[in-house]
């Protein structure tokens, strides 16, 4: 007989007990490895998604509402020696052939074969014909169309100049096409292409690049560049340096052209106003360079004489002979034609009336007075139609009556002589003011020059071109590559860590399984007490006996580990299946792929094995320390000593108090952190509270068991006393149930019910009735009759309704629908006073100690390069991991870095997923982002449906998606609630383990005390009375577990639910707790009934 022979023989002999231990170990390890592998699978899916949406793309120029030459890609490809593909992306709306199904906000991508070469698949699909389209699979699914079907595609026609530019036409800028579906693009065919870090499949529509360019009036242009990873590694700086070498003025929308009369070289912009940076650089290129700003005025008046609709040029007195060098800002030079028309002479005061375009295209008519400083003949340099930029709708029409400027023009005011002037002199300005005066009046965020002119010299064109493209960073016009792959991978890596999440919540389940492991093992050892006593009696040292049992337990644990790892894979598959079906909302519908890393399985198995061995060792160590005499004499000699009980009880008290104090401190001092911190506090405080509560229970059991001086007076007292007999088992019951209850109750508290009063301003809806998103931004004010009319809305149908319009800067979705860590969240620009006036939403935290400033914090001056921002609690804490005072780095339209500093956090709301900044900051950073792509709608209660219908039908061509605010909020809550459903399942599993443990312990207690129970029967206890005693004994423990779990959960979740938006579902919580209590009682009753059935008195007879 050797050590191992004894161990293996015992293993086989006690196989039933060992099998039970093995199963418990298996559960612990399956849950542990399963949680880790779920994390692996989600990570793998996100990595795969990056591959699918970027293909081989390493760097990308992200669209900035600016356009450059598609040929720039060819130049770059030569420079970089890697594939570079141009893409033209516009927003669109797509419907099926009969218009019955519509998909808004689709990304229409003009691509060529270079794009497909960058895709994740090896093959390049056949190029599209001009009248055909390739649909991304999600679009085809939503439209229910397939290859060969027809669709109608409406796309936005982006102008060269931003649509907010003064005088830009606000005429319909969309075009619709009926196209045939040539192919459907799956992931392999790059159908998932998306530059945003989001795992949700984008709504992509692919058309030929050249065709789309023609259709949207940007022939040969693109607004996205994709650069592949080359054979040689290149940093983003190197790629951008190559871009700097390749770019041309045309890529910034600039044109350098020689003019014959006057003999100058002129720089002008397709965007009308030349970007400030470019203009500054251009003026520095040549000492004689001079700037020009020409504007369209409504009228020039002298007394009651009026000349309508004229161009006025603001020019530098030093660069022209048209105006005197010493002309002041309040003086004007007019041409002879105007002087004749008005009968004006030098010294007269003229009034210039013009429109300024404010936010939401609100036109402000202003009038300024100028004194006539001179009159120039309409000849020579004074006849210069090139001074007027090519205002769309103005420049290229034959007659004044055909003007379609972005301002109201009263055609009745246009006289024949005005038409004649237009015919003869086109846009030749009728008046001139100083550049300084002109810029003060008409300068805007898009620029304050419409042209820069230099006197013509040989070689000047090349010199200026070289200087401009060399000196100017193309990033200032939005031309810069960003490391999209690196960002995408980081977004996936830093995103929602499902492994950690599952592991965190599984910890309590794992703890339950380990308690069960220890219990089952110790039951086995206890049933072999006499054998252990014999081994000790025949002289084996207690350590050796301990090693024999530990080796036996270790082998069982090892076998349990192997089976557990395999079961963990099955468990993961079930979880992944759940995430793909029942719980798909938790992952925003993403198809999660099963993926297990061997190292993860090894870690899970090893950790589980160690934990199981620890559980076995901790329960074993006391057993082998008992004297052989006691072990051989049965287990009736439980040693009770009041002194020892108090002493051990004091330890429990101390541990309990310290743990609970630690938990309370954790909640009090660290509960206000970010989402990850709050989660950490929840798990940390929860664990400490459970440990503390169990320690207190242990102390109580010891004190009651050892220090009870008053005699028993009731059956319940006897039950309580009985529960102190095996304090370890009693603690196990309490611990098992507390873990399960903690999970289930926490989840219940976290669960969000529907918004009880969505009309309240402080609710998550902000009191708004609808949240609208548009495919094509609206430029006008939805709150004014003029704006509504311009948008084709019937104003009377919107009586009582109002809207808060939001500018949108596209970015990563930072809502709970995105599993990735949003790198650059979407920005919303809002007119602060609109939200402030309404008192919309509830601020949970702000940078100020008082919350009185609310939305006005967005107007705070935080210094150069810092913009205040407000975010939704979920967005900040979970999606971004940010807190008040934290900053996010952004780049503005001109590539300049700036920081968003979080100054306020609002409770869970419909603004989830974006950060909100003040509109003024927004337009300063992103001047080209025209119009409003989202809005919040207030509607009087009775008219809500009517308002919804009016907006939906009126803004149909803008691709409006109008969602009731409560519904939008509920959709976000549904994601959270789906997570909570998963955790409820984990809690439920914990409770099942708790119930198994409870049943086993009750049975075990009863079976080993059958003699005692028989004695009680003998002395007159009825079976019912015994049942009641057993019930009291164990249900008290169930109740204790319930109380420990509920109290621990209630304290641990405080940081998470302390926001005003949080509503604790007290009723369902109460129901849950009662149900668990009743269920515990039921299991006790079942176990007691099983144990008490049969002839108990046989136990006496068998003596």
């Amino acid at each position, binding site marked *: 007989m050797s050590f191992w022979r004894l161990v293996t023989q015992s293993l086989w002999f006690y196989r039933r007990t060992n099998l039970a231990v093995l199963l418990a170990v298996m559960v612990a390890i399956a849950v542990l490895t399963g949680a880790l592998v779920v994390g692996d699978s989600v990570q793998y899916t996100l990595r795969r998604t990056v591959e699918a949406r970027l293909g081989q793309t390493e760097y990308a120029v992200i669209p900035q509402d600016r356009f450059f030459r598609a040929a720039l890609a060819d130049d770059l490809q030569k420079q970089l020696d890697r594939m570079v593909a141009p893409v033209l992306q516009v927003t669109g709306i797509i419907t099926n052939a009969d218009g019955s199904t519509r998909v808004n906000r689709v990304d229409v991508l003009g691509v060529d074969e270079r794009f497909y070469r960058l895709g994740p698949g090896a093959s390049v699909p056949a190029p599209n014909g001009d009248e055909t389209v390739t649909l991304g699979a999600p679009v085809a699914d939503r439209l229910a169309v397939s290859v060969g079907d027809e669709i109608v595609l409406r796309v936005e026609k982006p102008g060269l100049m931003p649509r907010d530019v003064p005088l830009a036409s606000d005429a319909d800028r969309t075009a619709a096409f009926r196209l045939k579906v040539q192919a459907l693009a799956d992931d392999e065919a790059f159908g998932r292409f998306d530059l945003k870090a989001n795992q949700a499949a984008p709504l992509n529509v692919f058309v030929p690049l050249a065709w789309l360019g023609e259709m949207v009036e940007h022939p040969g242009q693109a607004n996205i560049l994709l650069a592949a990873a080359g054979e040689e590694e290149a940093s983003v700086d190197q790629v951008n340096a190559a871009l700097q070498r390749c770019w041309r003025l045309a890529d910034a929308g600039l044109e350098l052209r020689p003019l014959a009369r006057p003999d100058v070289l002129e720089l002008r912009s397709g965007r009308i106003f030349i970007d400030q940076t470019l203009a500054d650089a251009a003026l520095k290129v040549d000492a004689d360079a001079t700037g020009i700003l020409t504007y369209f005025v409504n009228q020039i008046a002298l007394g009651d004489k009026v000349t309508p609709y004229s161009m006025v040029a603001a020019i530098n007195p030093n660069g022209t002979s048209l105006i005197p060098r010493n002309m002041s800002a309040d003086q004007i030079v007019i041409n002879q034609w105007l002087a004749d028309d008005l009968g004006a002479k030098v010294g007269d005061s003229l009034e210039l009336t013009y429109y300024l375009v404010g936010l939401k295209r609100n036109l402000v008519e202003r009038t300024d007075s100028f004194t006539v400083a001179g009159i120039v003949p309409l000849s020579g340099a004074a006849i210069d139609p090139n001074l007027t930029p090519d205002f769309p709708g103005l420049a290229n029409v034959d007659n004044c009556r055909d003007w379609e400027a972005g301002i109201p023009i009263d055609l009745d005011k246009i006289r024949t002589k005005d038409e004649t002037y237009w015919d003869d002199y086109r846009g030749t300005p009728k008046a001139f003011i100083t550049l300084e005066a002109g810029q003060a009046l008409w300068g805007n965020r898009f620029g304050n020059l419409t042209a820069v002119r230099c006197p013509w010299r040989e070689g000047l064109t090349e010199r200026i071109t070289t200087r401009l493209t060399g000196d100017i960073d193309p990033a200032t016009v939005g031309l810069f590559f960003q490391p999209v792959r690196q960002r995408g991978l980081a977004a996936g890596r830093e995103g929602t860590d499902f492994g950690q999440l599952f592991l965190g919540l599984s910890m309590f389940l794992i703890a339950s399984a380990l308690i069960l492991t220890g219990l089952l093992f110790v039951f086995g050892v206890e049933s072999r007490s006499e054998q252990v006593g014999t081994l000790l009696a025949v002289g084996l040292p207690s350590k050796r006996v301990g090693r024999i049992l530990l080796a036996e337990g270790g082998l069982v644990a090892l076998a349990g580990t192997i089976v557990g790892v395999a079961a963990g894979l099955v468990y993961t598959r079930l979880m992944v299946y759940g995430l793909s079906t029942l719980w798909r909302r938790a992952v925003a519908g993403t198809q999660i792929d099963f993926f297990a890393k061997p190292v993860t399985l090894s870690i899970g198995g090893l950790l589980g094995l160690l934990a199981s061995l620890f559980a076995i060792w901790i329960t074993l160590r006391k057993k082998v320390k008992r004297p052989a005499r006691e072990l051989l004499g049965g287990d*009736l*000699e*439980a*040693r*009770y*000593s009041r002194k020892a009980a108090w002493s051990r009880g004091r330890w429990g008290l101390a541990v309990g108090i310290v743990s609970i104090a630690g938990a309370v401190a954790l909640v009090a001092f660290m509960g206000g952190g970010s989402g990850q911190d709050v989660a950490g506090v929840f798990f940390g405080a929860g664990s400490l509270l459970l440990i503390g509560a169990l320690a207190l229970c242990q102390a109580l059991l010891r004190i009651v*068991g050892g220090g*009870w*001086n008053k*005699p*028993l*007076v*009731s*059956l319940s007292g*006897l039950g309580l*006393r*009985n529960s*102190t*007999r095996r304090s370890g088992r009693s603690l196990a019951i309490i611990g098992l149930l507390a873990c399960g209850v903690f999970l289930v109750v926490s989840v219940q508290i976290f669960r969000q019910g529907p918004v009880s009063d969505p009309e309240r301003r402080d609710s998550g809806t902000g009191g708004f009735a609808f949240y609208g998103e548009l495919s094509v931004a609206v430029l006008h004010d939805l709150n004014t009759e003029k704006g509504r009319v311009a948008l084709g809305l019937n104003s009377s149908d919107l009586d009582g309704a109002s809207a808060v319009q939001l500018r949108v800067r596209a970015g990563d979705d930072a809502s709970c629908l995105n599993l990735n860590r949003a790198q650059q969240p979407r920005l919303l620009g809002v007119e602060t006073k609109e939200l402030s006036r309404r008192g919309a939403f509830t601020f949970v935290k702000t940078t100020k100690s008082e919350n009185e400033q609310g939305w006005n914090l967005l107007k705070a001056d935080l210094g150069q390069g810092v913009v205040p921002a407000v975010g939704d609690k979920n967005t900040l804490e979970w999606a971004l991991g940010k807190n008040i005072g934290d900053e996010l780095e952004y780049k503005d339209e001109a590539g300049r870095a700036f920081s968003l500093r979080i100054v306020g956090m609002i409770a869970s709301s419909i603004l989830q997923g974006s950060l909100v900044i003040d509109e003024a900051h927004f337009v300063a950073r992103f001047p080209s982002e025209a119009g409003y792509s989202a809005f919040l709608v207030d509607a009087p209660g009775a008219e809500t449906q009517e308002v919804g219908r009016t907006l939906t039908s009126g803004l149909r061509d803008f691709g409006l998606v109008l969602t009731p605010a409560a519904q939008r909020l509920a959709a976000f809550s549904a994601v959270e609630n789906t997570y909570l459903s998963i955790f409820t399942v984990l809690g439920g599993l914990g409770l099942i383990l708790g119930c198994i443990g409870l049943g086993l312990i009750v049975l075990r207690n009863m079976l080993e005390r059958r*003699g*005692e129970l*028989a*004695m*009680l*029967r*003998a*002395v*007159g*206890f*009825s*079976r019912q*009375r015994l049942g009641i005693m057993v019930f009291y004994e164990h249900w008290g423990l169930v109740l204790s577990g319930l109380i420990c779990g509920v109290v621990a959960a209630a304290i641990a979740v405080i940081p998470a639910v302390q926001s005003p938006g949080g509503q604790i579902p007290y009723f369902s919580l109460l129901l849950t707790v009662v149900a668990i209590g009743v269920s515990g009682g039921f299991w006790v009753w079942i176990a007691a009934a099983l144990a008490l059935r049969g002839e108990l*008195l046989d136990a*006496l*007879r068998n*003596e």
Partner: protein
Amino acid sequence: MVELVDVTKDYGQADQPVGVHVLKGISLKIEPGQSVVIVGPSGCGKSTLLNIIGALDHPTSGRVLFDGRDLAGLNDRELARIRNREIGFVFQLHHLLPQCTVLENVLIPTLAGVDNSSPKAAHERAEQLLERVGLADRMVHRPGELSGGQRQRVAVARALINRPKLLLADEPTGSLDEEASNDVAELLVGLNRDEGVTLIVVTHSQKLAQRIGHVMELRGGTLNDGAQA
């Protein structure tokens, strides 16, 4: 007080077509205050007979009359009440609850819920009994802190808490050393003598049998009076 009329007890055995006849038509009448010892070889059915007398077991046939009442006509609750109020049991293994004090162990039968007398009176009675069995100084001790003989004396006190008319003792000294056995025997004899408790003892111990007096022998399923102890 107790009368057995032609009582038989058979135990069926799975591997044998015919059961084991443990008791074969035993008739016995015990008067109040009498003390009887039943002796016999191991497995002869002594404990079975005691359990039938104590309403812990049912005879296969025959009648058991307790104070003139046929136990066969009583339901489980009524039998429990008789065991609690009329009969006291002392077992070979004392079955004390280790988590309870000595005093509490004595009080256990009062918790059976068949008596509404005041807990205070029961408490006083328990203290008196413990004094009577010589354990007045051990009342708040736990069983684990007592010797085997002391534990058995606690068991005796527990059996007497409800002032039973009949005390049944099944091998009360079976697991005790000689000195402790003598103490327990003295206690039982004293109780019978001083308090008039009817005493039926089942034992192997000849010494115990001699001290108690009236010895009956159970052998071959029949009970013979006047056996030599």
